[in-house]
C-alpha cells in the first residue's frame, strides 16, 4: 500500500495526540519518545514509568494490528514491515546504513532535546520557539537528505 491514506492518518494522529494529552494531564510529562528512551540509562528515579510506557508502546502497536488488521504493514493482515534499503549508488550494506542512521538519530535527538514527538507534537502545541526551530530544521534536512540520496 503506497497511496495517500488521509482517514487512517487523521485517526492515528488523533490517537497520538490523545496519548500525549493523557500523559500531560495525568502525569505532567511531555510525550517525547527520544527523551523517554534516552534517559533510561543511567537509571534515574523516573526509570519505572519510562519502561512501562515503552513496553505499552510496543504492545499497543501489536494489539491494534490484530484488532484492525491490514491497514498497511505489520500484524496478521499486513505486509511484512521492512526498513529502507540504502541507495545502490552508495555501495553500503543495509545494516551499516541503518546503523549510521540510528547513531545520527540518537545523538541528534539527545543534544537537540527532542524528536518528532517531543518537539514536533508537544513543542509545537506549546508554541515553543525552540521546537518550531528544531522541527523546521529536521524536516528540511530530512527532505534534503531524501532528495540527495535518492533513497525513495
Amino acid at each position, binding site marked *: 500500500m*503506497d497511496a495517500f491514506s488521509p482517514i*487512517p492518518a*487523521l485517526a*492515528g*494522529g488523533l*490517537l*497520538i*495526540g490523545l496519548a*500525549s*494529552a493523557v*500523559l500531560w*494531564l495525568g502525569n*505532567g510529562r511531555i510525550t517525547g519518545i*527520544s527523551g523517554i*528512551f*534516552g534517559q533510561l540509562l543511567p537509571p534515574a528515579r523516573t526509570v*519505572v514509568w*519510562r519502561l*512501562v510506557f*515503552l513496553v*505499552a*508502546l*510496543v*504492545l499497543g*502497536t*501489536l*494489539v491494534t*494490528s490484530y484488532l484492525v488488521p491490514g*491497514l498497511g*504493514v*505489520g*500484524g496478521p493482515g499486513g505486509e*511484512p*514491515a*521492512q*526498513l529502507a534499503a540504502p541507495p545502490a549508488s552508495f555501495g553500503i550494506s543495509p545494516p551499516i546504513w541503518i546503523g*549510521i*542512521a*540510528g547513531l*545520527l*538519530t*540518537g*545523538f541528534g535527538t*539527545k*543534544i*537537540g532535546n527532542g524528536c*518528532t514527538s517531543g*518537539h514536533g507534537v*508537544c513543542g509545537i502545541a*506549546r508554541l515553543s520557539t*525552540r521546537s518550531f*526551530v528544531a522541527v523546521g530544521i*529536521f524536516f*528540511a*534536512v530530512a*527532505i534534503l*537528505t*531524501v*532528495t540527495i*540520496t535518492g533513497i525513495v
Partner: protein
Amino acid sequence: MNIRLPYLATAAVSGTLFGSGLYVSQMVDPLKVLRFLDFTAIPTGGWDPSLAFVIVAAIAVMFVAFRISRGRSTPLFDKQFHEPEFKKIDAPLVAGAALFGIGWGMSGICPGPAISLVAFWPDSLLVFLVALFIGSYAGAFVIPSGHEKRLAMAR
C-alpha cells in the same frame, strides 16, 4: 520514585494509545514516511502527504490539552507539570535537529516508530535500536551534564 498505580497506569494507557496511533496512521512503516519526505515526487503526483495529516491532528489534540492544563496547578497524579525550561536557540538544538534530520532522511525512522516496530521486528531493527542507544548515550557526554548546567546554557 513515583510508582503508584494510577501514575504507572497513566503511562501504560498513554504508551498503548501512542503505539496504536503509530500503527493506525502507518507511521510504523519507514517507507511510507520516506514517501512523505520525498518532495521530488510532488510534480509527478507520487507524493504521500499522510504524515502531515498525522502530525497536524496530534498537535490539535495536544494544543487543547495544554490549554486545559493552563487552568490547573498540577496534573492529576504528580505534584507539577514538568514543562521544558529551555528557551534559547542554542548550538546543540540546531546541530542536533540537523543530525537527526540526516538520520531520519536516511531511514524514515524516528524514535517512536523505532520502538513500536519491535512489535513487527523487521530485519536490521536491532542494529537501529542499538545504534540509537549508543548515539543517545554519546550525546549525553557532549551536552553539559547535569540539569543546572544545561539549563544555564539554554534558558
